[in-house]
């Protein structure tokens, strides 16, 4: 047995234990990336580094064995900074989008590529479900969104952006014609009541999300119908019918509308657990002080969002605010900590000329499709599917499981820290519809090589070159099928990033 100190705690571990295991024994979780318990491999990423206090050295805890009398730091600022440095170096040599650029530029963070894929498959219902996770009013936005997402769309470089906004409208219109509206599953009833003041975009959006989270919602509107500023729009911009359907959906979902009623938040507070003011630009009340954190006001339990706080022109931003305000109300009422921080995103600027063909491998070469029935009525189903197929699938296949992303998020790593010379060129290789290999997402841990070494019948992978240009490839230019074959799932599971990823992760979840 070996005695040592980890974070000033004396412990005894069996001979041969790594520092990683020793720390785990006293509940200290050290992050790992290139390490995999089942696969013998060398330390390389340095994300698991700890400090040997006596020697002043930073060492990889996943490989270094505990020795008698060691004194190890796992959680000091210095150690944390070191791990962040390692991550930032890795990120500087990493080319990929965690989330697609369209999604990032959507103020409401709609999962656009996912929606596109579902539409392309003809699964319009599921597509709408994805849309509604982030966007409460897809039908309305389908008509009036200024679509910043399309401006960011990578497809803009080739035959025009994907018609994201029209596609979203299409899913919502399909739903509206189906006779039974899609209503998401609600969380368990909380028995708490929220008053929303104002049935404009922000208020309606918040109402949708609050209902979903299990609150009962009363919407007070001084006008005779819902819509707020939308009511000023011309019929050829936003048909009245559309506003009507969207309100009907909310009502079906459980919203109680109280029209023709102007209320004062401070007055009605006593009847509700929380109040959200979303009454729009022209209803400012001198008695209310909005200077709180986020969407809260100085008045306990009273929140405010939308133009009543500060004029917001873009409809999708109001939709986003409604969603975020609802989350804050929820946090307040449930006592949970509010979690709306933006997750880490690996990004890169424009596609290079030579990358276009690579990206088109997952798409079609078509031009942007204009709806044959006119922009107001939008796509037919066939057009929608064809247009959705134009999506390049920019989002990462392991966006939610990638260790590099999770650690970068955890340590607040900045990808732009070492942006000096030109980035590497993205390549993608496919093993039929089983696996995708993207070398520019590889952190060179070598786990895949080690796994494939145990399969004698396979060609396997090899390291090519050394130093910065080192990469992983199939010997003799053989196919991925010969290299990996049946070991694909094993490699995908071990690969810490999306360098090796499931071709179709969503279907397998």
């Amino acid at each position: 047995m070996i005695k040592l100190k980890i974070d000033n705690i004396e412990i005894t571990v069996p001979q041969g234990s790594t520092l990683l295991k020793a720390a785990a024994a006293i509940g200290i979780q050290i992050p790992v990336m290139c390490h995999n318990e089942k696969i013998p491999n060398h330390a390389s990423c340095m994300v698991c580094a700890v400090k040997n206090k006596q020697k002043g050295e930073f060492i990889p805890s996943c490989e270094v064995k505990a020795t008698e009398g060691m004194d190890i730091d796992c959680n000091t600022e210095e150690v944390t900074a070191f791990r962040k440095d390692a991550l930032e170096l890795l990120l500087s040599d990493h080319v990929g989008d965690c989330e697609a650029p369209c999604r990032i530029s959507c103020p409401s963070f709609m999962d656009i590529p996912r929606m596109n894929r579902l539409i392309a498959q003809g699964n319009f219902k599921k597509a709408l479900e994805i849309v509604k996770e982030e966007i409460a009013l897809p039908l309305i936005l389908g008509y009036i969104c200024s679509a910043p997402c399309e401006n960011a769309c990578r497809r803009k470089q080739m035959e025009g952006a994907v018609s994201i906004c029209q596609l979203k409208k299409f899913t919502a219109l399909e739903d509206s014609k189906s006779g039974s509206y899609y209503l998401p599953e609600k969380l368990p009833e909380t028995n708490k009541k929220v008053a929303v003041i104002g049935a404009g975009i922000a208020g309606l959006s918040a109402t949708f999300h609050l209902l979903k989270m299990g609150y009962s919602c009363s919407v007070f509107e001084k006008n005779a119908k819902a819509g707020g500023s939308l009511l000023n729009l011309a019929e050829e911009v936003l048909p009245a019918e559309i506003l009507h359907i969207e309100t009907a959906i909310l009502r079906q979902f459980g919203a109680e509308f109280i029209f023709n009623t102007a209320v004062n938040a401070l007055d009605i507070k006593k009847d509700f657990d929380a109040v959200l003011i979303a009454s729009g630009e022209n209803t400012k009340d001198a008695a209310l002080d909005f200077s709180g954190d986020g969407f809260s006001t100085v008045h306990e339990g009273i929140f405010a969002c939308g133009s009543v706080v500060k004029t917001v022109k873009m409809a999708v931003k109001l939709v986003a605010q409604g969603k975020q305000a609802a989350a804050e109300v929820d946090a307040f009422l449930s006592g949970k900590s509010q979690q709306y921080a933006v997750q880490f995103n690996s990004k890169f600027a424009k596609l290079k000329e030579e990358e276009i063909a690579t990206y088109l491998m997952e798409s079609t070469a078509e031009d942007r499709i204009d709806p044959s029935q006119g922009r107001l009525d939008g796509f037919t189903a066939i057009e929608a599917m064809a247009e959705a197929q134009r999506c390049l699938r920019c989002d990462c296949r392991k966006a939610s499981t990638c260790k590099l992303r999770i650690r970068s998020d955890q340590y607040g790593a900045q990808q732009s820290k070492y942006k000096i010379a030109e980035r590497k060129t993205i390549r993608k290789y496919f093993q039929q519809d089983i696996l995708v290999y993207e070398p520019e997402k590889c952190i060179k841990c070598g786990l895949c090589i080690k796994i494939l070494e145990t399969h004698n019948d396979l060609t396997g992978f090899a390291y090519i070159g050394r130093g910065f240009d080192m990469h992983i490839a199939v010997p003799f230019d053989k196919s991925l099928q010969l290299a990996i074959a049946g070991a694909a799932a094993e490699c995908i599971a071990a690969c810490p990033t999306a360098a090796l990823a499931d071709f179709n992760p969503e279907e397998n979840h």
Partner: protein
Amino acid sequence: MKKDITAIVDGIVAAKGKTVNKVIPVLQAIQQEFNYLPSAALERVCETTEISPSRIFSVSTFYTQFRHQEQGKHIISVCVGTACHVKGAMLVYDAFRRALKLKDGCDTDADSLFTLTKVACLGCCTIAPVVQIDDITYGMLTTEKVPEIIQDFLSNRQDNTSVRKHQPKHTANLKDEIRIGLGSCCVASGSSAVRDELEKTLENNSIAVNVKQVGCVGICNQVPMIEIIKDNKSTAIYTKVMAEEVRKIVLKHFKSGNIFNEAGNRLLNYIEDLVVDHFPVSSRKYSPEKRDTPVSEYLNRQINIATEHRGIIRPLDFEEYMKLDGFVALKKSLFEISPGDITAIIKHSGLRGRGGAGFPTGVKWELVKSAVSDEKYIICNGDEGDPGAFMDRMLLESYPFRIIEGMIIAAIATAATQGLFYIRAEYKLAVKQITAALEICRKHNILGENILNSNFSFDITLFEGAGAFICGEESALIASVEGDRGFPSLRPPYPSEKGLWGKPTLINNTETFSMVSWIIRNSAEAFNNTGTLHSKGTKVFALAGKVKRGGLIEVPMGTTVREIVEEIGGGIANGRMFKAVQIGGPSGGCIPASMADIPIDFESLSSAGAMMGSGGLVVLDDTDCMVDIARYFLSFTQDQSCGKCTFCRIGTRKMLEILNKICSGKGSEQDIVALEQLALKTQKGSLCGLGKTAPNPVLSTLSYYRNEYEAHIHGSCPGGKCKDLIKYEITEDCIGCTKCAQRCPADAIAAKPHELHLIVQEKCIKCDSCREVCPVNAVILK
């Protein structure tokens, strides 16, 4: 063709073996055969051996030696080692590209006659810049000589063998002797031609004199050198001898037996009487008796331990080695003292490893000795990857028996069972000499079963390193011997505990081993009398760069930088100013001239931010740019990084990118700060010595020459080296000779006889040709 490959590969596999550890020797043999690695050959290897496709690719793409593309008929290797770099290797490289009309991204000419590559140090630094075409080496190049050299190669390549076996015809009891050095530098400088001419002259004139081919004479940038010994006394040394001059030199000292030549001889004496100093044209005669001659100054400051009998001993002459106390230490170790005594002597001598880190050799031997195992290995590290060092090469070429003796003594002391030389494949002569020496030792029962009839058995094999700086690092070296990529592994466990094939292994540097027999023979005290408190004995340095006299020197530890540069090296060449020395190569740093009184030993160098490293010592003058030097080393280390760990793989590359930015004049103050921070992070975060020391050249230049970095930020390169920041201009001194215009490869100068010439800046490619050729130094750098 396919059938052919199969048969050849099968032959190679049969000769080398089928186990995974044979992958490098098999690849080397394939490349020897085809000049590159044809894919079909590699597939055949995988079919017929234990070597997997994954291994063969991982290994063959790791080492620089291996080529996967078909090559031109001849390979031109431009040395871009440190000494060559500071003497303008890149300009020479560019000149070759132009002369061969190579297109961007392509290294083989249109006729597939030549392939151009860069190599790190050919070990002839003293005659830098150096280029090797196949086996022929050309030194002291300038851009303008490039086309001539290609021509010369094409017309001469048949009769140019680098070293020939020579059996002198007149060996019987001769008092007279002519010595000629045949180390790599010597050969590169033309000493084979001189030797041929010498033999021809002796033959034609029936002169009975012994011609003795000795190893490196140490004074590498004055070679070819001929030493005349008459009546057992050195009478004259001629340096920089050209083949045409040999006849005159010989006939001056030895009477021709052939009456025909008398007239010629008389004429010769007549010429000599006229101008002693300028005869023959390029060679000078020094009498070793006179103490103030440059040669004696060069040699007299030195103490020869590793290089004992330098310039006298014939590398492969076993009898001579015996006569000069060879294997006395071995016999003592076998028959007179115990293994424990050996280790005690080495420990007491204070000898520290010469491979860089300076680990006490005796302590290391004790560790291996106390490791319990029925098999133990001894490895002589002759990888010498520092691009500005060639000591180990010289030692291996010139004193093979001494190193072997050191290894056997180490084996006795540690109870080792097997020995291994690990030598870079580029060191062709060293490989050849060691192979031959091992064979001779076996013949004389110095190696093999029951050495010298003792009960100790030990043998040594040789492994050719395939070109990766990291394989000088001991754990990476072991990985490569085992048939893997040269990925270092975490230490502990150290090789002394778990080394080659998991067995206890003693790894010492070549120079370390070459000191052993001297110490055992002369006592620990004799060794530790010399040197400083913590660094005992002598150290061999490869002195190169901007000094007047460069070469292999062996000086006591504690000798100052100034003594080496000014006294041994004769000061700075061409009347320039002494600026700094770079010590320790890619892991080392710069010592500025203002600190030249620092004694050279392990501790002093480290505290000055440099490092003993391998012992490369490159002298820099005021035309050298310190930012460029830092960039040079970083481009080397980032290329040589094994790629395993994050900080080294990416950190060194990012440092290089920042340095490139600064050198191109696009840097900012923040870039200097970012560079410094990243250097510190890389030092802290890298897993092995390569990455941990790679930032040293940056940190040391930043601490002594930050002002030069700042100058680059503000748009100027004080040393006049960074192409983006300099301009060539012609001054009023121009005499209108048109030479520059004729030379300019970019048509940037119009020929206007007798008029002031002008460089069109937009066209100028900064190749330096005009400046080289101008007879009145009218072309200047701005």
